[in-house]
């Protein structure tokens, strides 16, 4: 296998990824149990979710070590998806909320 070692430090990288995933999960639960304003809570949770997602995709799913063409194939549609959802669907939902009142 020519590409056996291109994953960096072998098993160690998975242990480190696993450790940080658990740390972020504990932080997520901690911030829910603390009473912080809803907006800050939501923002912090979403940021932490994306951090976890990044760790899983980059290291567990190995995308960090794949060819750039594959990275773009996977990541670019997700960016478009997020932009479209936030710019078109979210305003509609808020509009319906205002109509209901």
């Amino acid at each position, binding site marked *: 296998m020519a590409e056996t070692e291109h994953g960096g430090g072998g098993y160690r990288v*998975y242990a480190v990824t696993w450790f940080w995933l*658990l740390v972020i999960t504990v932080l997520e639960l901690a911030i*829910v149990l603390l009473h912080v304003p809803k907006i800050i809570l939501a923002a912090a949770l979403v940021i932490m979710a994306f951090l*976890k*997602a990044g760790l899983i995709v980059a290291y*567990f799913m190995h995308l960090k070590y794949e060819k750039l*063409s594959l990275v773009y194939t*996977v990541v670019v549609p997700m960016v478009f998806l997020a932009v479209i959802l936030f710019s078109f*669907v979210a305003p509609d939902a808020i509009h319906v*909320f205002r109509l209901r009142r």
Partner: protein
Amino acid sequence: MSSSDWEGGKSPFGIGWPKLMMWLFLVQDTLTFAGLLTAYGVMRLSLGRWAVQAEVFNLYLVGAMTFILICSSATMAVAVSAAKRGDHRKVSTYLLLTTLGGLLFLGGQYIEWTHFIHEGARLFTNPWGIPQFSATFFITTGFHGFHVAAGVLYLLVTLWRWNRRSIQPESVEIAGLYWHFVDLVWVFIFTLLYLI
């Protein structure tokens, strides 16, 4: 891109087609879950009210399920790495551990659903007076649970075939991609459905 790129024998993504197909499947499966979570977001935003999840669900149980799924994802990564190194026995052991994690997660989900149904939650009605609340919960976690159950079967088949030495390390890696994706989706379900 030169004309020689079209003459075959090149691998534009630098991976074999089975792995590429799994990646493309996962991209489209992301859209499925994005659809479910978007529907949830639209309903919750437009209603302007929702049940207090911390009072309905046991966050410690959900936290434990999250912990188990992250651990099983890590053991899967080790199995994939061991397969590439040709460490045959280690692959079997870690595939088995991963499967066990999946089964534990499903057990947690069984407890959670049972509790939720005992509280009076049904697909379109519930005691909290927000029908969309239980519908979202059942459909989204149900769809994810179905993915976990399918993943457990997939892992068992992979384990069986690996022990018969009828598959290449790449097949273990592809099973791994699917399993990590299940964990990845849970990150967002856990955050959006339970915590926010």
